């Protein structure tokens, strides 16, 4: 079960990465990043559920939830990232009238 979850996670991660690298639309890139973060969460949850926490032997039952807690934080951070990203998209549209990331390349060489 652990392995299939991890492979799923890896697959989602790579799909997300592909999206982040190929989408022209800035929001598309953000979508890709969200998929990557989600993939990480799958891995975190899988580990949390199927791997023995190092502290378990000491009776720290909560240690089983560390992965889930981490995933929770990731979700929130991801949301924050998206929020800031969308703000930037709006400013970008205002200032450059584009959401095409390939056109956002004034800064180079």
């Amino acid at each position: 079960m652990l392995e299939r979850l991890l492979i799923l996670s890896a697959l989602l991660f790579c799909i997300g990465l592909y999206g982040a690298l190929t989408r022209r639309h800035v929001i598309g890139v953000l979508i890709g990043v969200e998929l990557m973060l989600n993939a990480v969460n799958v891995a975190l949850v899988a580990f949390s559920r199927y791997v023995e926490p190092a502290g378990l032997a000491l009776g720290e039952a909560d240690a089983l939830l560390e992965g889930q807690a981490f995933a929770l934080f990731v979700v929130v951070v991801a949301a924050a990232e998206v929020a800031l990203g969308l703000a930037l998209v709006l400013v970008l549209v205002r200032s450059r009238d584009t959401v095409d990331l390939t056109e956002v390349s004034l800064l180079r060489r």
Partner: protein
Amino acid sequence: MNLFQDIVFWALAALAVAGALGAVSVRSIFHAGLLMVVSFLGVAGIFALAGAAFLAVVQVLVYAGGVAVLIIFAVMLTRDVPMSSRSGPLGPAAALIGAVLFGLLAHAVTQAQWNLLPESLPGPAARVFVDAPTRLGQVLVSDHLLAFEVMGVLLLAVVVGALALVRERSDA
């Protein structure tokens, strides 16, 4: 792990992957956002399967709900901006790297000798996944109190930043 769970898992996994693939490949950014939500929902199901029911709920509410709505709003706001084509020039290279990376990661996770959790958990641990929502709440304000507080500051900072950026300025 029984057959039913297997079937559910594969279905959800297929949903998540299909959604993700769609999200990165469909032409319309609006549809991509929707497909992302689909993928998120699949993942939420998998969370539930993996003993993270609370997280699954959060996933649906925050991601499939909040984030997706945010994205769709943004798409709406920037709709009239012209877009030439769907994907950038890096497609083949990115695909190749994605594929190789996937192979490597898959190889890594299968090769690794994970220290698996025993089937039967000792006393209090056995109920952990059942009590997860309650216990998570406790963990957040005890073990991870600092992170929790930092997260608050982070959200504040992001709000400040986003607002400072978006608000029009006379001299901008």
